[in-house]
């Protein structure tokens, strides 16, 4: 009986320790990539706590406004997220945001979320500078080693 109690106590302690470790990792970790535009900014387009919980709702609302109503002026665009949070690789090319240890990829892996935004959407800013508010990452190319062919549009995209 005493042994069972001790074992039970150990298990509970172990579980509590694991939870604490996870909580510390989640609370203390910062997935913003050093060197990205986001690392230089004081805050995201909304308060960080709000964005951590609600970024998907914000993007989803914006997607309907953009596709159906043509509104592209607001700060809640996925292209804006990518432009600001993308990191530059050693070759100067941007690193896709959904890669392991990149902004989107690392956090979604931690949270065990599988998303399909990037089945269709570009993971690096391609198409030139995004203008004020959207961050700027005017590096050419799409992924390391695969620069875009010349002549692709350099329009402002939000």
């Amino acid at each position: 009986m005493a042994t069972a109690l001790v074992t039970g106590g150990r298990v509970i302690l172990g579980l509590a320790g694991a939870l604490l470790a996870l909580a510390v990792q989640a609370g203390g970790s910062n997935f913003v990539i050093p060197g990205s535009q986001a690392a230089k900014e004081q805050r995201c387009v909304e308060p960080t706590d709000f964005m951590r919980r609600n970024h998907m709702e914000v993007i989803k609302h914006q997607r309907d406004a953009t596709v159906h109503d043509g509104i592209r002026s607001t700060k809640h665009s996925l292209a804006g997220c990518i432009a600001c949070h993308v990191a530059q690789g050693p070759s100067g090319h941007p690193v896709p945001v959904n890669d392991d240890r990149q902004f989107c990829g690392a956090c979604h892996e931690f949270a065990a979320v599988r998303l399909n935004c990037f089945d269709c959407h570009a993971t690096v800013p391609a198409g030139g500078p995004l203008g004020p508010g959207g961050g700027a990452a005017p590096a050419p190319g799409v992924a390391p080693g695969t620069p875009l062919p010349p002549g692709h549009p350099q329009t402002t995209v939000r």
Partner: protein
Amino acid sequence: MNNPSEAIDQGRRGFMRSAAGVATVTLAPGVLLHTLANAASPGPTAGEPRAVQVTDQVRYGMLIDTTKCAEGCTACVSACDRENGLDLQTMPEGADPALWDRQEARWIRKVKVQDNLTGKVTNLPLMCQHCEHPPCVDVCPTGASFKRADGIVMVDRHLCIGCRYCMMACPYKARSFIHTNVEVKLTLAPRGKGCVESCNLCVHRRDNGQASTACADACAAAGHGAILFGDLKDPASPLSQALAKLPSRQLRENLALNTGVRYAGV
């Protein structure tokens, strides 16, 4: 009127007057805002992303003068491919090249038609005709295929389930299906496996206040100027002016779709 009981009730008159005043004050801002919104809506200023939703005050369309369309020239097709990232598609490994040639997404096709009685040959670019009554929208089971307020027929790929009913319904073979994962895509032209897509009249250019489409620009740059893009609802636009002068037709006009793309010389 001399009878005091028939005298006008000034109090009642005053009440009606003030009621009318209140109604004006209540309604006027709404009417004013509505007018302002309509005045602001037709399009964003050049280079500025659109901030207000599109309205039906404009209807975008094109006039294609087939007499100016040169045989063998594919400037519009390649410009469209570049603009919308279609040239970034790669053939899946081990695929049959002949099959890939038919399946690769294309927003514009160059078509050559011959009148067998007279032998007259006509070249024309064929893309989504942006119908007023689009069959693709009628058949879509999820509402993914839709017509924007400004007349652009497009696919909301967040809603598209890839059933391809719209491809069957379209009389112009304007739509393409993406069969495989797409590795490289442009920010302005998302593209992924399992969705249908077609010409959207360079909707990113519309929303950023640019004047023309990639195909029209390329055709003008190639020296042909066969494609004229503009607003069908604005009687002063170059497009409306040209339509008023040139005899033009809608392709398959018997279907009564009221297409936004018109052809001259066919």
